[in-house]
């Protein structure tokens, strides 16, 4: 199994951006399909399974079906292939839906692949290499750190509301009880962030222009070559799309 996690984050970001940008400029289903298959194959090679994409696959299928329905109902591109009462389906709608679906699959799955394979601290160091002051770059690992904390806070609030019998059966009750779910979370966020920021300031955060990291990133020659190759590949595809 290839351990992608040890690769430089700049290479992984270049790969992700290549996939996203190519999908965005592409109007060719075959190209989008090739990109999608490339992502899935790389995932299988590195992780030996596609488990990580299970949840997003369901969301993408839902989004895709919504796009299909809207296009079938309201799309007017191409030749009409079926008609009933006021409803007319055009062949262009099917193609447009499929293109849209493939595109969203590529851009979403490539971004998720990047997120799973890249450590937040590595991203911070990458930003520092790009001369972003470390006080801002460090916000990336801080975000990763506080996500589970705030999710746990939210679950505590939900349990508390549940136990107190705050009604949550109908949609209207859900909407009416939004303040009871969100306002405590906002107040907790304010307190937590106050404590966290005082704690980091009193541990020297922001004292110097730079800070040290226990594990540093560094671009290896083959990673640099890969980045150049990916950029050249993107430029070639872009020129092909523009002129062919």
């Amino acid at each position: 199994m290839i351990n992608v996690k040890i690769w430089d984050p700049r290479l992984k970001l270049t790969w992700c951006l290549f996939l996203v940008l190519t999908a965005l400029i592409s109007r060719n289903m075959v190209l989008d399909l090739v990109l999608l298959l490339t992502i899935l194959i790389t995932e299988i090679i590195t992780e030996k399974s596609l488990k990580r994409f299970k949840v997003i696959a369901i969301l993408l299928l839902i989004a895709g079906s919504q796009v299909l329905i809207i296009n079938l109902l309201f799309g007017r591109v191409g030749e009409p292939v079926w008609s009933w009462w006021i409803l007319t389906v055009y062949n262009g709608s099917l193609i447009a839906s499929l293109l849209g679906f493939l595109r969203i699959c590529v851009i979403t799955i490539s971004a998720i692949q990047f997120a799973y394979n890249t450590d937040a601290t590595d991203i911070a160091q990458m930003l520092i290499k790009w001369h972003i002051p470390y006080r801002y770059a460090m916000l990336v690992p801080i975000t990763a750190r506080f996500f589970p904390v705030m999710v746990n806070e939210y679950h505590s609030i939900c349990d508390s509301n549940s136990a107190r019998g705050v009604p949550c059966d109908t949609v209207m009750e859900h909407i009416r009880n939004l303040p009871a779910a969100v306002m405590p979370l906002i107040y907790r966020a304010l307190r937590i962030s106050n404590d966290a920021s005082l704690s980091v300031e009193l541990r020297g955060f922001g004292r110097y222009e730079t800070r040290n990291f226990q594990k540093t990133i560094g671009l290896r020659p083959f990673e640099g070559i890969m980045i150049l190759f990916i950029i050249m590949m993107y430029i070639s595809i872009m020129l092909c799309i523009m002129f062919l």
Partner: protein
Amino acid sequence: MENELALKRKKIFKTDTKSLIGAVVMGIVFVIACQITGQIDNMLPWGKAGMYLINGSCWAFFTAFITLIYKQPGGIIAAEIEALTSVMYSPLWVAFIFANAVGTIWVSFVASKYDMTKWSHHILAQAGVCILGNCIVTVGMIFILEIPLDVAIIETLILIAVNWIVATVITKLAYDAVLKSGLVK
């Protein structure tokens, strides 16, 4: 000292550690709230058709709310946390990167001109957030999702109308409540 200077509400930038970390934590709350409201929308007929009215209002509320509390770059930080995290549940995350940034910048602009104590200030702030943000998302819907132009426009107009009203009310009430709480100066 920066913190004292930022007490003057019309200042655009607030780069102290409290604001930066506060924006991060509140950005995460933004994400959680969007998830909750997205699920509520999915229970409703318009949500099933892909029109997220409650989620959109929540998005507009948090975009303005966080910017008013933490100024910039806190507003953009929180907005981009939401945009980049939305990759996990929305195919329009690319559009959100721009929509969120533009929304928060507009709010900063309004907050630099007004003290945000009146309803009219919040109406103006949310006007920009809802109109500009939803327009950018519309572009995303057309070019990423291949939604027909007329459908995208009608959806956007409905979203702007609903989000603008709902988000204005919630933002004013929540912002006043938080200022009254003393947790934010």
